[in-house]
């Protein structure tokens, strides 16, 4: 089954073309990496999936439906920016997630807080950037939804936090087999996570495939990326 399907999707911001007849298909129950330089259209791609951005043209299907608030009940979206109530403790932030999302799984969230090394009583304002990123990811991963969209979950984060985030994603995926789509520049650290990979440039797909097959044929994903964008 296909989790996400796009056919000739065009999105323009004024004269800038963000998505240039983007056509792709992402399978269900796998982890797909979306890779490409800044400005490739990765964030716009995510935004169109959750209906934050409407395309000028083209067809988008998410979990078999057109993007809408109804489909979004089955989607957890980790955006590239996030705001917090700084006076919340980690526990209160998690409880807030529980209050906001009907599908929020408190047990899963507590397990992740523990395994990602956050203290329940720490105030959100006192957390480092990396720790905040871990907390943000927990609020996403703890939702019992079919589709997880993680836009740059590792960017600007220390190595230990990146490793923790990767472990959190693997833990969640092991248990639930959701569809996960991740964009990242941290290819070396993240490539062992992916089943599928999509390389984007200038709003288009320039290469896509099954990661283990690509490795067999062309070597590491990091090397392929270098070859494509250097």
């Amino acid at each position, binding site marked *: 089954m296909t989790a996400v399907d796009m056919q000739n999707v065009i999105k323009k911001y004024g004269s800038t073309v963000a998505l240039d007849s983007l056509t792709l298909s992402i399978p269900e129950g796998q982890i797909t990496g979306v890779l490409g330089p800044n400005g490739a259209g990765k964030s716009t791609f995510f935004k169109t999936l959750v209906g934050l951005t409407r395309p000028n043209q083209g067809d988008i299907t998410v979990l078999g439906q057109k993007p809408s608030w109804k489909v979004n009940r089955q989607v957890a979206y980790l955006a590239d920016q996030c705001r917090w109530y700084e006076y919340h403790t980690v526990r209160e932030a998690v409880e807030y997630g529980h209050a906001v999302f009907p599908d929020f799984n408190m047990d899963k969230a507590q397990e992740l807080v523990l395994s990602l090394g956050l203290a329940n009583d720490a105030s959100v304002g006192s957390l480092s950037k990396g720790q905040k990123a871990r907390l943000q990811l927990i609020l996403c991963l703890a939702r019992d939804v079919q589709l997880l969209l993680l836009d740059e979950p590792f960017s600007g984060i220390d190595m230990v936090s990146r490793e923790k985030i990767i*472990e959190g994603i*693997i*833990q969640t995926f*092991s248990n639930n087999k959701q569809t996960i789509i991740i964009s990242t520049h941290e290819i070396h650290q993240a490539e*062992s996570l992916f089943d599928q990979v999509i390389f984007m440039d200038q709003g288009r797909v320039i290469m896509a495939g099954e990661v283990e097959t690509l*490795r067999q044929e062309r070597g590491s994903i990091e090397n392929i990326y270098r070859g494509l964008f250097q």
Partner: protein
Amino acid sequence: MEVIDVAGIRFALDLSQPLWEQVLHQIRGAVARGELRAGEKIPSLRELAGQLRINPNTVMRAYQELERDGLTETRRGQGTFITASQPKITEIKISLAREAVQELIHAMNNLGVDKKAALTLLEEAVWQ
């Protein structure tokens, strides 16, 4: 390459080669060398994926292949175990030894050393 020890099995993964094959080969190797014994439990799929930081589907593919080869058995609710069959383990050992011999022959061919000369070298070499 980073070496990661998971429950006594050493893994070193090279991202330029398919990962599932490396997981498969490294578990096979550990059995052939006796680092994993007959009947011994191996890490759960989830545990191995978590510690190696790789996709659980990758580990699953390797585990399915191990089971198909008869090198492991999965017992419901208990986990995955190395086969108790000694002949099976010997078979794996012989097949890995054959692969090593093929590599040696390949290296000798590249050097232009023929079978007779290579056998003499093997006889002369110090075996421990």
